[in-house]
C-alpha cells in the first residue's frame, strides 16, 4: 500500500463510513479495514490521515482505529507470524511521541494509550530512546506537551505497582530511575514555582495542577517496589513539597461541583497515598517526616467539607491515620488526651454523620443502601474509614477513646432530645458511633461476636433504642427506626433474652412501615433472631413465646410483600420461611390461606425469575407448608397437589430453567408423603423424567434422582407392571450417571433404589450388564467416592439377593472375579465407607458373604475368609463418624452445598435418611455372632480352627465380645 494521495483518500472514505449509523454501510467498511490491516504501510497511512486530515472527526476516528490496530497486532506471539512489518514498527516508534504531543487532547489520549501498549512490549530494550525523548520534552516549558509526556509515563510505569519483583522488572525500573528521576524532580520543583508565579491565573493553575497530580502518581509508581536510592537522597525535596501541597488552599481551584472531585482533591488524595506508602514500607527513612504529615492530614480532615466530591480524599486521609495510629512507635503522636479528643470530635464524628446523599439513597435507592449498610460493601466510604480509625485507635487507647465518645454520644443525644424533628441526625450519628465503638468482631451469621466491654449495650438499648421501636407512629423518622432495628440485629448475641423478647412484637409492627429499608430491616432482624440458639440446641425464642404474636407476624410479613418496591423482597421471604420453620404446628391453621398467596406469588415470579434468593426462599416456604401440615394430617397432601400442580405444569411446560430443579424437589416431597401407591398423575409424568435433555443440565440431576427414587419407593410394582418398557431407559440414566466422576454417587442412589424396590423378576435380564458397567468404570477411573458407593451397592445386593447370587454373577462375568473383588476392593477399602446406614449395609452384606456363601468355605476363596472377617471387625470398631444432627432449622441457606450452582437444594424439602435393612437387623455385631454360630453348627470344628489360625488376637478378642453379647458359642 503506497503512501500516496489516492490511498489516503480511499482510507479517509472508509474511515468515514465506519462512523455511519447504518450497519449496512458501517459493517462492510469495518470489514474492509480489517482485511487490509496486514498490509505494509497501513499504520503509516492511518497516522498520516490522523496528522493531515482537515476534518476533526476523521482525525479522531483514525486515532481510535490506530490504537485498536496496535492493541490487536503489536504483540509478537511465539510461533505466529509477525503482524506488523519491521519498517512500520520502526516508523511508528520514531514518530508517535511527537505526533501525540502535537495533537489535540482527544487524539493525544488515544496515542498515549497506543504508546503504552507498544511500550509494554518494546520498552526498554526495543525502544531505547523513548525515555530520553520524553525527558527532553520536559524542557519545552509547554505544559500541554509535558502533561502528555507525564500521562504516557504514568501508563508505562503504573504496572510497577502490582507486578512481582523480578530482576527483569527491577532492571527496567533502575533504568527508568537513572534517566527519569532527576528530571522529574526538577520538573516537580519548577512546576511548584510556576504555581506561585501564576497563583492568580486559573487556566494556568489548572494545567499545572494536573501536572502535579501526574507527577505524584509517577512518584507512587517509581517508589512502590522499593525505596530507590535517588528518592531517599531527595526525600527532603519531595516530602517538603508534598507537605506544602497538602496544606495549600487556593480559592481559584475550588470547584462548585458537589459530586466530582476537583484538581486539588485529586492531588491531595494522591499525596495521602504517597505518604501512606512511605509510612508503611519505608518507615525507618520516613520517620522524621511522619509527624508533620499526620498533623497536615489531620488538619486537612478538619477543614474539609461534607460534599461527596471530597469522599475519596477524606477516606484516603482517614485510612492514613488509621494505619499510622496502630503502629507502636507512633502511638505517642496520638496518646495525648487533647489529640484524641480532637480526632474524635473533628475527624471521626463529622464523618459518621448521615449526609443528604445518604438520605437520598435511603429513600430512593433502598436496595443499594441495604447492600452497602447491611452487607458491608462500603469499603471506601467515609463511614467505613471512620470506623476503621476508631478500631485502630482502640488498639492502644480503648479506654480513653470510649470515654471521649461516651461524652459525644451523650451530648448528641441531648441535642436530639431538645428538638428531635430537627436534630434527628444527631441521634443517628450517636447510634453509629456506639456501634462502631462496640464492635470488635462480626460475622453475617452471628452479628457482633466480640464487643467492647466498656460499652453498656443493654443500658443503651433500654434508654435509647426501645423508645424508637415503641414509637406509636412507625412512619416517623424512618432512619432512626432503621437504626434501632439494626441495633437489635447487630447486638443480638450481646443483649439479654428478655430484651430480645421485648423487641420481637415491636419488630413485627415495623414490618408495616412504608420505608423499604425499615420494613426490610425488621424482617431481617426477626429472621436473625429466630435462628439464635438457646439451651439444648433448640431455638432461643420458642414457638410458645411467639404464640401471642403469631397471627400478626404472618399477617404483617405477607402484607409487607404488597408494599410497593418490596414485592420480591428476599429478606421478607426469608423471614417467612424462618417463621414457618420456627412456629411449626402453630402455622397449620393459617396455611390454607397462605398457600394460596404463596402459589400466586410463584405464578407471578415464574414469568420472569429475577431474584434468585427470593425465589429460593419462596420454595423453601412452600416445602415447610407441606411438611408441617402433612405431618399433622397426611391426607392434606392432595390439597397441596391440587394447588401446586397447575403452576408446576406451567413451569415444566415453559421450561423455566431456574425453577425446574425446585419443582422436582417439591414433587419428591409430596410423593414421599403418599403412604401406599403412586397416583396416576405422577405415573403420567414418568416417561418425561427419563428424557436425556433434562439430564444434560447438571442442576437437574440431584433432584431428578431423588424424584425417581420416590417413584421407585412408592411405585416400583406399578412401573414393573405398566411401564416395563421404560426400565431400560431408567437403567440408561444410571449408566449415564456412573460414567461421570461428579455424578456417580447419584447413579448409585438410583441403582440402590432399583435393587431395593423393583420386583426381582423385572430386572433379572439386566443384572449382568449392570455389573459389567460397574466393573468397567472401576477399571477405567477408580476414585474413593466411587469405591465407597460401589461397596455399599454390592453389599446391598448381597443382602437383597443373597451372597451366593452375588458370587455367582461375579464369577459368571469372569472366572475368579469374586475373589479378586473381595481381595482387592472389599478388604482394603471397606473401612473408608462412611455413614451409619452405609456401614450397616456393608456389615450385613459381608456377614452374609462370610456365613452364607459356600464358595468362601470350600474353594480357593477360603484364604480370604479370615481377612474379610478381620476387615468387618475393623469396620465395627472404627470410631463412629459423627452424624449430622437433625436440626435443619438452623441451616443457613447460603451454607447448604449446592446452592448457587445450578442445583438449588431446598433445605426443607430434606429427605429422611432411608435404611433399607431397617429393623430387620438392629445390631449387626449380634447378627455376625449368630450367623457364625449357625455356620459353625453346620460344619463343626472348622470355624474355630480358621479363627485361631488366621485371625489376629485383637480382632479375636472383639469377636469374643460379640459372641458373649449374643450368648452363642462356636462349635
Amino acid at each position: 500500500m503506497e503512501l500516496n494521495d489516492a490511498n489516503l483518500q480511499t482510507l479517509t472514505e472508509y474511515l468515514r463510513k465506519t462512523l455511519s449509523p447504518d450497519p449496512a454501510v458501517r459493517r462492510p467498511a469495518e470489514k474492509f479495514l480489517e482485511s487490509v490491516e496486514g498490509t505494509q504501510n497501513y499504520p503509516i497511512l492511518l497516522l498520516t490521515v490522523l496528522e493531515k486530515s482537515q476534518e476533526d472527526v476523521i482525525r479522531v476516528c483514525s486515532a481510535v482505529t490506530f490504537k485498536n490496530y496496535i492493541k490487536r497486532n503489536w504483540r509478537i506471539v511465539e510461533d505466529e507470524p509477525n503482524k506488523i512489518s519491521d519498517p512500520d514498527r520502526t516508523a511508528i516508534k520514531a514518530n508517535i511521541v511527537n505526533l501525540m504531543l502535537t495533537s489535540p487532547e482527544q487524539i493525544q489520549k488515544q496515542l498515549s494509550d497506543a504508546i503504552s501498549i507498544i511500550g509494554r512490549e518494546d520498552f526498554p530494550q526495543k525502544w531505547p530512546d523513548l525515555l530520553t525523548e520524553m525527558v527532553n520534552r520536559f524542557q519545552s516549558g509547554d505544559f500541554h506537551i509535558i502533561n502528555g509526556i507525564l500521562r504516557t509515563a504514568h501508563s508505562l510505569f503504573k504496572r510497577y505497582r502490582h507486578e512481582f519483583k523480578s530482576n527483569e522488572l527491577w532492571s527496567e525500573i533502575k533504568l527508568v530511575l537513572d534517566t527519569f528521576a532527576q528530571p522529574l524532580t526538577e520538573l516537580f520543583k519548577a512546576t511548584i514555582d510556576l504555581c506561585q508565579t501564576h497563583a492568580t491565573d486559573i487556566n494556568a493553575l489548572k494545567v499545572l495542577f494536573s501536572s502535579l497530580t501526574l507527577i505524584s502518581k509517577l512518584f507512587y509508581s517509581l517508589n512502590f517496589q522499593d525505596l530507590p536510592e535517588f528518592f531517599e537522597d531527595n526525600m527532603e525535596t519531595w516530602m517538603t513539597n508534598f507537605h506544602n501541597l497538602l496544606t495549600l488552599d487556593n480559592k481559584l481551584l475550588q470547584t462548585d461541583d458537589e459530586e466530582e472531585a476537583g484538581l486539588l482533591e485529586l492531588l491531595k488524595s494522591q499525596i495521602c497515598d504517597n505518604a501512606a506508602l512511605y509510612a508503611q514500607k519505608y518507615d525507618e527513612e520516613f520517620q522524621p517526616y511522619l509527624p508533620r504529615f499526620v498533623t497536615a492530614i489531620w488538619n486537612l480532615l478538619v477543614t474539609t467539607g461534607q460534599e461527596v466530591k471530597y469522599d475519596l480524599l477524606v477516606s484516603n486521609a482517614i485510612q492514613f491515620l488509621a494505619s499510622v495510629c496502630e503502629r507502636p512507635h507512633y502511638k505517642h503522636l496520638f496518646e495525648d488526651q487533647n489529640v484524641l479528643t480532637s480526632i474524635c470530635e473533628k475527624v471521626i464524628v463529622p464523618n459518621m454523620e448521615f449526609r443528604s446523599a445518604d438520605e437520598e439513597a435511603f429513600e430512593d435507592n433502598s436496595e443499594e443502601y441495604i447492600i452497602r449498610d447491611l452487607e458491608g460493601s462500603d469499603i471506601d466510604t467515609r463511614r467505613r474509614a471512620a470506623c476503621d480509625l476508631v478500631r485502630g485507635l482502640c488498639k492502644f487507647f480503648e479506654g480513653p477513646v470510649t470515654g471521649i465518645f461516651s461524652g459525644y454520644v451523650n451530648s448528641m443525644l441531648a441535642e436530639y432530645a431538645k428538638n428531635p424533628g430537627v436534630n434527628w441526625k444527631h441521634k443517628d450519628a450517636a447510634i453509629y458511633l456506639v456501634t462502631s465503638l462496640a464492635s470488635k468482631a462480626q460475622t453475617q451469621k452471628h452479628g457482633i461476636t466480640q464487643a467492647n466491654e466498656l460499652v453498656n449495650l443493654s443500658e443503651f438499648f433500654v434508654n435509647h433504642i426501645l423508645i424508637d421501636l415503641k414509637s406509636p407512629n412507625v412512619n416517623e423518622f424512618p432512619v432512626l427506626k432503621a437504626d434501632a432495628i439494626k441495633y437489635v440485629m447487630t447486638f443480638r448475641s450481646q443483649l439479654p433474652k428478655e430484651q430480645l423478647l421485648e423487641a420481637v412484637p415491636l419488630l413485627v409492627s415495623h414490618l408495616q412501615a412504608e420505608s423499604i429499608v425499615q420494613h426490610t430491616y425488621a424482617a431481617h432482624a426477626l429472621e436473625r433472631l429466630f435462628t439464635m440458639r438457646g439451651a439444648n440446641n433448640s431455638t432461643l425464642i420458642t414457638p410458645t413465646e411467639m404464640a401471642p404474636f403469631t397471627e400478626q407476624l404472618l399477617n404483617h410479613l405477607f402484607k409487607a410483600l404488597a408494599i410497593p418496591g418490596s414485592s420480591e423482597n428476599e429478606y421478607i421471604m426469608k423471614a417467612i420461611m424462618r417463621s414457618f420453620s420456627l412456629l411449626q404446628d402453630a402455622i397449620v391453621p393459617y396455611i390454607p390461606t397462605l398457600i394460596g398467596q404463596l402459589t400466586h406469588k410463584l405464578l407471578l415470579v415464574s414469568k420472569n425469575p429475577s431474584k434468585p434468593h427470593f425465589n429460593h426462599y419462596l420454595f423453601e416456604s412452600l416445602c415447610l407448608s407441606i411438611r408441617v401440615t402433612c405431618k399433622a394430617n397426611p391426607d392434606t397432601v392432595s390439597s397441596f397437589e391440587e394447588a401446586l400442580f397447575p403452576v408446576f405444569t406451567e413451569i415444566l411446560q415453559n421450561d423455566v430453567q431456574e425453577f425446574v430443579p425446585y419443582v422436582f424437589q417439591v414433587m419428591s416431597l409430596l410423593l414421599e408423603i403418599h403412604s401406599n401407591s403412586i397416583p396416576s398423575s405422577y405415573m403420567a409424568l414418568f416417561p418425561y423424567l427419563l428424557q436425556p435433555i433434562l439430564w444434560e443440565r447438571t442442576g437437574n440431576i440431584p433432584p431428578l434422582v431423588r424424584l425417581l427414587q420416590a417413584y421407585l419407593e412408592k411405585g416400583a410394582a406399578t412401573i414393573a407392571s405398566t411401564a416395563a418398557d421404560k426400565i431400560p431407559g431408567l437403567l440408561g440414566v444410571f449408566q449415564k450417571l456412573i460414567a461421570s466422576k461428579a455424578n456417580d454417587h447419584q447413579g448409585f442412589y438410583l441403582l440402590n433404589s432399583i435393587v431395593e424396590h423393583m420386583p426381582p423378576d423385572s430386572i433379572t435380564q439386566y443384572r449382568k450388564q449392570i455389573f459389567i458397567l460397574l466393573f468397567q468404570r472401576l477399571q477405567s477411573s477408580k476414585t474413593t467416592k466411587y469405591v465407597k458407593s460401589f461397596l455399599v451397592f454390592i453389599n446391598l445386593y448381597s443382602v437383597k439377593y443373597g451372597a451366593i447370587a452375588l458370587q455367582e454373577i461375579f464369577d459368571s462375568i469372569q472366572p475368579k472375579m469374586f475373589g479378586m473383588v473381595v481381595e482387592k476392593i472389599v478388604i482394603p477399602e471397606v473401612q473408608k465407607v462412611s455413614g451409619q446406614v452405609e456401614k450397616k449395609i456393608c456389615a450385613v452384606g459381608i456377614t452374609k458373604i462370610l456365613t452364607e456363601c459356600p464358595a468362601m468355605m470350600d474353594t480357593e476363596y477360603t484364604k480370604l475368609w479370615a481377612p474379610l472377617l478381620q476387615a468387618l471387625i475393623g469396620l465395627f470398631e472404627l470410631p463412629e463418624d459423627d452424624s449430622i444432627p437433625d436440626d435443619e432449622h438452623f441451616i443457613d441457606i447460603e451454607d447448604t452445598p449446592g446452592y448457587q450452582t445450578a442445583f438449588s437444594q431446598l433445605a426443607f424439602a430434606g429427605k429422611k435418611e432411608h435404611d433399607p435393612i431397617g429393623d430387620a437387623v438392629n445390631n449387626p455385631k449380634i447378627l455376625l455372632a449368630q450367623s457364625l454360630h449357625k455356620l459353625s453348627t453346620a460344619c463343626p470344628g472348622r470355624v474355630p480352627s480358621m479363627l485361631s489360625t488366621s485371625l489376629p488376637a485383637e480382632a479375636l478378642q472383639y469377636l469374643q465380645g460379640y459372641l458373649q453379647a449374643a450368648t452363642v458359642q462356636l462349635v
Partner: protein
Amino acid sequence: MPAENMSDKRMSKFKNKGKEPTKMRDRRIAECVELRKAQRVESILKRRNISSLGDEEPLSPEFNTDNEQVISATIQEIVASVNGDCPEMQRQGCQAARKLLSRERNPPLKEIVEAGLLTRFVEFLGRNDDPTLQFEAAWSLTNVASGTSWHTQQVVEHGAVPAFIALLASPMLNISEQAVWALGNIAGDGPSYRDALIECGVIPALLARLTPDAPVGYLRNLTWTLSNLCRNKNPFPRFSAVQQMLPSIIQLLHHSDKSVLSDACWAVSYLTDGPNERIDVVIKTGILPRLVELLGFEELSVVTPALRSIGNIVSGSDLQTQAAIDAGVLSALPQLMRHPKSSVQKEAAWAVSNIAAGPCQQIQQLITCGLLAPLVDLLRNGDFKTQREAVWAVTNYTSGGTVDQVVHLVKCGALEAILNLLQVKDTKTVLVILDAINNIFLAAEKLGEVDKLCLLVEEVGGLDRIEFLQNHENNTVYRAAQALIEKYFSEDGEDQCLTTEATDTNFVFGASEVQKRFDF
C-alpha cells in the same frame, strides 16, 4: 510468566521447598538488582586511614582548603620531591601526599594517580633502610586503594601486592599494620583481587603476625583484612584458603575486643553464605555454641554479623539447621525478635522463616522454645521488611507443619495477623499470605473444621480483604484470592468421564465396548 518464576525463586531459597537438591541456592536477595542504597549495617568493604597521629604538626591554612589550584600546586611540589634523589625530600613529599590523601573531605586520589606517583610509592615500600619513607608510602597507597575499583586497580597494577606482602613481616609494627590495611582494601575490591592475593601467599604471611602479644589495634586491622579475604562469592574463595584461615578466625571469635569480634563474625557470615558444603566447613569447627553466645551480646556490631551467620546456617540442610538448634539458637532468637533495632528483628525473622521450612520436628521446636508469640508480635508490629520475613515464616510453617502445629499457630493469633497484612503494598507478600491462608484451610479440611475457620476469617475482617483482592491488578493475586473464595466461601463445579448413548426420549442402557479383562 515472570511473576510465578519469582515466587518459585524465593521458594527455592528455602530448603525442602520444591527444588532440585543439586541446585545451588543463592541465599540472599542481595545478588538481585537493587534499587536501594547499599545496606548500612554491612561491614565496610574498604577503609581510608584518616586517623591523625599524635605527632601531627598543625596543617598549614592552605592545606585545609579545597582550592584546586592549591592542590595542584602541592601535587607538583610532591612530584618534584618524590622523583628527586634526596631522601629527606622524598620523605617530605611522601608525607605531604599522605596528608592530602588523609583529608576528611575530597581527597585527591585521582590526581595523585594521574601525577604518576604510584610507581615511586611502590618502590618506596621496598626501602627497608628508610622505615619512615616506607610507612608514608604504605599509608598513601592504602588510601588510594580505598577508592573505587579503578583506584584499587591502579595500586595493584603498579605491583604493590608482593611489596605489601613482603612488608607484613616488617619488624616495625606500624609498617606491618599499614600493609595489613592496604591488603584489606585490595581484598575488599572483589573476588578476583582477593584470589590474586591468596595466590601470592597472603594468608600465611598474615597468620604469622597473629601472635598473643599483638596489640589490639593491630589485631583489629588483621581481623578485618582476614574477613575481606573470606568475603564475596562468584566464585567463593577456594576451600584450601578457607581451611587455612578458619582456625585463626575461630580463635579471634573468642577475643574480648568488640571490634575484633565483629569482623571475625562477619568473616563467618561470609563463609556461611554459600552452599551447604561451605556451611559444613564452618559447623565442623564446633563454633556454633560460641556464635549463639555472641547473639546475646549488647553490641549491635557483634549481634548483626553473628545473627547473619546463624541465619545462613539455618538456611542449610536439615542437619545443619538441627546443629544450630542443638547449639541453643532457639533460646537466643526470641529476644532478638524483640530487639529495638528493626534490622535485627528482620534478620531474626528471616532465620525463623528458614527453620520453619524444615521438617515438623523442627517446627515443633519453634513451638516448644516459645518463638510463636514473638513471631506473631512481629507480624503485628514489625516494620514492613520484618513483617515480610515473618509472613514467609508463617507460610513455610503452614506448608510443612502438622495439622496440630498449624492449629496451634492459628491459636497464637497468626491468622488474624496475616489477614491484616493483606493490605500491604507489596504484591508478593500478599500472594505469600494467600498461600498461608490456603495451607491453613487445608489443615482445617483435615479436621473437618472449614466452617469454623471461615467464620474466624470473616470475624476478623479477612473475608472482606480477600474479596477485595479479587479486584487486584495482578492476575496471580486475583486468581489466588478468587480460588480461595470459590473453594471455601462458595461452591465448586464437577467433571465428566465416560459417555452414554441417548435418543430423544431415553438413554440407551448397555455396555458398548468389547469386553476387556478386568483387573483391579
